[in-house]
Structures are given as structure tokens and as C-alpha cells.
């Protein structure tokens, strides 16, 4: 267990208060539902980039990846390579088109809203199915994030699990409740900066303490030479499977919503440059932290590899800096939870309450429904997190692959293929999600492949085949598509 010194505690509380102040500032600037769930499309490129990165990278960046590197070495790099390529392609091919199209398609403010407007789906089936998928998976996703945060602080400081759970949840809900999307993006921005600084600082200090890079590599080789080999224990099949994680980006609602919120499509190039530089350097930081940890803890191995970052930050830095580094870990967890909470709230408010129950609800009413649903969903997530061993939380394992396979090809094809139809989107979405769920139940041979890859392929084929068998889209849909292309 790590001792919580006064400077560490003060730094940490200052961080939590800072998040609340941001929530309060944006509380005063939120006037309608578009402000609350999409920031009124006023997000600058830099904030969009870092908030997309921070909400994408959960505790995995500071706990999971360094832990995997510490335990197994260089062969864990493949997932980071796949994620970088996926994120880049998402910024390059999806971001600008989605920003332009969502505005042209009746100013859509959520992914389900966009799909309904893009395909003129008056039956609302597409909206409801996609909103249900979002709500279901994000409830578990949010809950398991809360478990991760609470467990971390329970183990680190000996805090009671339930107390840690409530403290973290109250802070996250407070700023999300008050300030909505802009508060989430700005807190994510600062959290992203904090994560970045921590991930640059820690490996530099550790490698330096070990006498430099060459010395560190040599010592790792002396401990276990297989940890220097990127191909150790890897097959082509295994490498493709790990890199396939990158396919998930195209369908994550809490990430693509940042593209929709950028104030102008002209900001996308700047956002892409900032976002990718942040991501690549942060991933290198996480990789080298875990790698350097192999040497640092050679004589006294860690029982839990995932504590490599937190332990190094406690051992090597003075308590003030250690407090900041701890805040960086909580930042990684919080910045993901807040974004998922807000996307879930927008699905309930825009896609159920406004679309199905109260078409003529006033903007003030909708903002308050949005705020209430943030609190309500968080409460459900906290109750689910009460029992960290609950099997229901295992459903989170389906979330990244499920979103990637169900929404990814649908979003990409809807942006690039005029001939795509509503039925194509619906069948593709369902088959993509079903493939992920079934594939995960099976073992051996091809079924060891990460399920997102078959899900993505089957969804793509289903969209194309069903759309081609279907009637051509109405002329107004085709005109709108052409208008989007002209506006690029």
C-alpha cells in the first residue's frame, strides 16, 4: 500500500476541485440541448483532439499497457500500433465528412439522430436500436470504469472501496451534470495534458535512473532476452488480431461525437495533428514506462504488474509531483467515464425523450432531462459497481468490439456510399453486433481471433448486399449526400 502524504493529498484535492470549477463555468453557458450534448458545435481543434484522446484512453493507458509491457515485454506493442493506425484513419476519413454530414442532415446531435436523418427513417427503428445498444453497453462500460477507479484507490491508499466509489462518482457526475459536453471536453483536455506530461516524465526519469536507454535495454536482455523481441510468442494471426483493436475507433460513439462537435470542418486537420501527436507520444510513454519497470523492479518484482506506473511515481518523485501523477491516473479513468455518461444521457434525452415522448419539449426542459439522466445513469452504474466481482460487468468485454463492429462499417459506408439504404444499415448493425457476441463464445483456431475483425467484415458485407438488394434511396437522400460532398 502507498502512504498518502499531505502534499500528495493537497495536490490531489486541488485537481478534483479544478474539475468542479470547470463544470461550474460551463453551467452558466449551457442554454439548450445542443449546448448540453454537443457544446453547440463550438469546440476548437486542440480541445477536440485532446478530449477525443483522453476519453478514448481509459485507465488502460496508465495501468494496463505499462503493466503488459512490464510483464511480457516488447511483444505487447502490437495493440498500440493497431490503435494508432485506426485512430489516424478515423481522423483522416471519418472526421470531416461526419462533421459536415451531421450538420446537413437536419443538424443531428447524436449518432442515432444522424442515422435516422441520413436515411430518412420515419419508422424510428434505426434510432431506437442504436440508442438501446449505446445505453446498454455504456452502462456497463461506465460501471466498470468506476470499479477500476475505486479499486485503484482502495489498493493504493487503503480507502474503503465504497467510499472511493462514491467520491469519484460524485466529482464526475457534478461537473458533467452542471456543464455537459463543454465541461466534459475541457476537463478531458486538462486531463489529457496531465496524462501526457505524466507519460513523458516518468519513463525519462526511470530510464535516466537506470543509466540511459542502452543500459536499460541491456539489463532487460540480461533478465529475460525474450522481452526484447517484438515477435516473441507471436503468430501472424495473433499480430493481426491485436492490431484489429484499431478497427474499433470508427464506431465508438463517445469518440466520433467529438468530430461532430468541432466548430468548423477546417479545424479537423489541426485536431488530427494534435490528437495523433498526443496519442503516439503518450503510447510511447506508457510502453517505455513498463519496459523500464522491468529493470527497476528486477530484484523486487511487483505482485500486480498494473501498478508499475503508480509505484514508480511514488518511489521516484517527491510527494507534490507524485500527487500530480496520481491525478493523471484518475484523469485517464474519469475522462472516459464522463464522456460515456454524457453519450448515454444524450441517447435517453434526444433519442427517446424528445424523439418518442415529448416532441415539443422546450430547450430548458430538455437540458434538465439531460442533467437528470446523467445523474440517473451514474446512480445505476454506481450500484452495479457496488459488487466489483459481478458477472454482469463482464459485458464490458463486448463493448469496444461491439461498437466497432456494429457502428463502424455503418458510419463509414453512410459517409462514402450514396447507394446505402436504411435496411442495409439496420441489418449490418445487428449482424455486426451478433457476430461479436457469438464469436466471443467460441474457442480454438480462427475463433481465437479478436471478434471485432469478423464482426466488422460481416457488417460491411451485410450493408453492401442488403443495400444493393433494396430499392435505390429516395432522390432527396441522394441530393443531400451530393450536397455533403460539395461542402467538403
Amino acid at each position: 500500500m502507498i502512504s498518502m502524504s499531505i502534499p500528495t493529498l493537497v495536490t490531489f484535492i486541488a485537481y478534483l476541485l479544478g474539475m468542479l470549477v470547470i463544470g461550474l463555468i460551463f453551467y452558466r453557458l449551457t442554454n439548450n440541448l445542443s449546448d448540453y450534448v454537443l457544446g453547440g458545435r463550438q469546440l476548437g481543434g486542440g480541445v477536440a483532439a485532446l478530449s477525443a484522446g483522453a476519453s478514448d484512453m481509459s485507465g488502460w493507458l496508465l495501468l494496463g499497457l505499462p503493466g503488459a509491457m512490464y510483464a511480457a515485454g516488447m511483444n505487447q506493442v502490437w495493440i498500440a500500433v493497431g490503435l494508432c493506425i485506426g485512430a489516424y484513419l478515423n481522423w483522416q476519413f471519418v472526421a470531416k465528412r461526419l462533421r459536415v454530414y451531421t450538420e446537413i442532415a437536419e443538424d443531428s446531435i447524436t449518432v442515432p439522430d444522424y442515422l435516422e436523418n441520413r436515411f430518412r427513417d420515419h419508422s424510428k427503428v434505426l434510432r431506437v436500436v442504436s440508442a438501446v445498444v449505446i445505453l446498454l453497453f455504456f452502462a456497463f462500460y461506465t460501471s466498470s470504469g468506476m470499479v477500476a477507479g475505486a479499486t485503484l484507490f482502495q489498493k493504493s491508499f487503503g480507502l474503503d472501496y465504497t467510499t472511493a466509489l462514491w467520491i469519484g462518482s460524485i466529482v464526475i457526475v457534478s461537473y458533467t451534470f452542471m456543464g455537459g459536453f463543454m465541461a466534459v471536453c475541457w476537463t478531458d483536455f486538462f486531463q489529457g495534458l496531465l496524462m501526457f506530461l505524466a507519460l513523458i516524465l516518468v519513463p525519462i526519469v526511470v530510464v535516466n535512473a537506470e543509466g540511459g536507454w542502452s543500459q536499460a535495454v541491456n539489463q532487460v536482455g540480461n533478465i529475460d532476452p525474450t522481452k526484447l523481441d517484438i515477435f516473441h510468442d507471436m503468430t501472424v494471426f495473433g499480430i493481426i488480431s491485436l492490431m484489429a483493436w484499431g478497427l474499433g475507433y470508427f464506431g465508438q460513439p463517445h469518440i466520433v461525437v467529438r468530430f461532430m462537435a468541432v466548430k468548423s470542418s477546417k479545424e479537423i486537420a489541426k485536431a488530427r495533428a494534435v490528437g495523433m501527436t498526443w496519442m503516439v507520444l503518450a503510447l510511447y510513454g506508457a510502453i517505455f514506462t513498463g519496459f523500464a519497470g522491468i529493470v527497476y523492479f528486477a530484484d523486487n518484482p511487483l505482485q500486480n504488474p498494473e501498478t508499475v506506473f503508480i509505484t514508480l511515481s511514488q518511489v521516484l518523485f517527491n510527494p507534490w509531483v507524485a500527487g500530480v501523477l496520481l491525478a493523471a491516473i484518475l484523469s485517464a479513468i474519469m475522462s472516459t467515464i464522463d464522456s460515456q455518461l454524457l453519450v448515454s444521457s444524450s441517447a435517453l434525452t434526444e433519442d427517446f425523450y424528445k424523439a418518442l415522448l415529448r416532441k415539443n419539449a422546450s430547450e430548458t426542459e430538455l437540458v434538465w432531462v439531460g442533467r437528470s439522466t446523467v445523474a440517473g445513469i451514474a446512480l445505476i452504474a454506481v450500484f452495479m459497481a457496488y459488487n466489483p466481482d459481478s458477472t454482469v460487468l463482464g459485458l464490458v468485454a463486448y463493448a469496444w468490439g461491439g461498437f466497432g463492429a456494429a457502428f463502424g462499417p455503418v458510419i463509414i459506408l453512410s459517409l462514402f456510399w450514396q447507394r446505402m439504404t436504411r435496411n442495409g444499415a439496420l441489418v449490418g448493425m445487428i449482424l455486426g453486433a451478433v457476430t461479436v457476441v457469438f464469436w466471443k463464445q467460441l474457442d480454438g483456431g480462427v475463433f481465437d481471433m479478436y471478434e471485432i475483425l469478423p464482426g466488422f467484415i460481416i457488417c460491411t458485407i451485410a450493408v453492401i448486399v442488403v443495400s444493393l438488394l433494396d430499392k435505390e434511396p429516395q432522390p432527396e437522400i441522394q441530393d443531400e449526400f451530393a450536397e455533403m460532398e460539395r461542402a467538403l
Partner: protein
Amino acid sequence: MEHTLSTATWFWLIVPMCTVAILSLLGFLFSLLKGDNS
């Protein structure tokens, strides 16, 4: 024996991730030259 990273490990560790970062920065540079980010 002095241990080092093999060329293949260096390649896969550096090239894909740095390539996407460099492409992103070049894309921004071109957009500035085109006057897209005024």
C-alpha cells in the same frame, strides 16, 4: 554479451506509429498552406 533491440523490433516499434504522427503533421501543414485554417 551486450543486448540490443533487433532491427525488426526497432522497425515495428518506430515506423508505423511515427508515420501516422508525421502524416498528421504534414496534413496540418498542407491545410495551412491552402489557407484552410484561417
